[in-house]
């Protein structure tokens, strides 16, 4: 199979890579670009651990081909903090201990960031529905929901 040359934007940087036609964006991020924050949980769009934002849409990077991002805008967990300054969601996940093993966490953070961008003041129910595409098998979801609520109030005040 001939490799495809792709030119795209990832976390604000212009990035060029070669990928195979059947290679997912998740594999490109992890194996070719060293961006290992997005995780492969299921590989079939059920668990949300590979969540990224593609042109302002929350998607599973396991359900996107690497070849599809030509000329588009990709945001991953690696672009969430500014240097040493954590995003309020990251800070609140730490404070609320909203993670244990951490495999689901990048996906939850990206999904929560997308949720708050579209709905800055969500109800608990809206948070639970909004994050239903992300599975956590350690903490249960209460701490995650509380961290998102707390981050939302911090971000509103900012």
């Amino acid at each position, binding site marked *: 199979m001939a490799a495809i040359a792709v030119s795209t934007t990832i976390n604000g940087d212009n990035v060029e890579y070669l990928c195979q*036609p*059947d290679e997912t964006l998740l594999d490109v991020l992890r194996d070719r670009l060293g961006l290992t924050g997005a995780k492969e949980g299921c590989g*079939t769009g059920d668990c*949300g651990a590979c969540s990224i934002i593609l042109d302002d*849409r929350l998607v599973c990077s396991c359900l996107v081909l690497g*070849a599809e991002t030509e000329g588009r805008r990709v945001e991953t967990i690696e672009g969430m903090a500014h240097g040493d300054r954590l995003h309020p969601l990251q800070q609140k996940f730490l404070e609320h201990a909203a993670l244990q093993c951490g495999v689901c966490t990048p996906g939850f953070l990206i999904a929560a960031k997308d949720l708050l961008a579209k709905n800055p003041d969500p109800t608990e129910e809206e948070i639970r*529905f909004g*994050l239903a595409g992300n599975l956590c098998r350690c903490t249960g979801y209460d701490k995650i929901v509380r961290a998102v609520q707390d981050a939302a109030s911090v971000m509103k005040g900012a």
Partner: protein
Amino acid sequence: MRYIRPLSMEDAVGQLAGSPGTAAILAGGSDLLVRMKGGFIEPDLIVDIKAIDGLGEIRETAEGFSIGAAVSCALMGESAALNREWPGVVEAAKLIGSKQVQGRCTIVGNLCNASPAADSVPALVAAGARALIVGPGGRRTVAVEAVPTGPGKTSLAKGEIIEAILLDRRAPRSGDAYLRFIPRTEMDIAVVSAGVNLTLDEHGVVKSARVALGAVAPTVLLVEEAAEALIGRKLDEAALERLGKVCSGACRPIDDKRGTVEFRRKVAGVLARRAATTAYARAGGK
């Protein structure tokens, strides 16, 4: 395997028709990539249709709406006009998958995946939606119920692509609704589903009706007898009773881990009644 991203329908159709091996159309990829990952298909050619002009748009025309094949269900959910005119179609589209899947999945993909349990299809069938098909022989328009022919199978010929789903402009006093049963609260596959679309006269009497059931037969069922049970009446208890009975009787379900035949029959009647009640209220019926 080759991946191409044509810029025109003509090019896409030509590439698909001229492909010697197996070819797959890629829009949202939420079915295609899962099947590729599982090893169920290994296409020689993937035709990504998202760069084709207009396919990512919902257009309001004189006749109604044209929903392009690359329009995500999330975008449908954000369309105020579509929500106002076809709330049942939108609520069905919004039930497909998680937020992540919503950002990618399309109703054309849902239709062409040809699952008997597809959420958007009963709502589209009830709505009388049509599929605009472009192929080597030109353009044709068919009722959406003519597209799936059985689980995983469609009536599309080699080289044909559905360009858009067409919905009519609404007559006054019209409403539609879609309901499904799942054992969870969200993100699951329908065990039974029902779509109902009604137009009333000025006295609240049902003038026209379409009732469709999902996940109770190899393809979505358009139940004409159920529509007849409603037409010419207000939506009183007798009409609802008859609707439920007819829908239960029309089912040809299978027994599987998600539901028994008996359960599916019963629930089909219940959901049809509830969807009809919602559609009636949306049409302004009292």
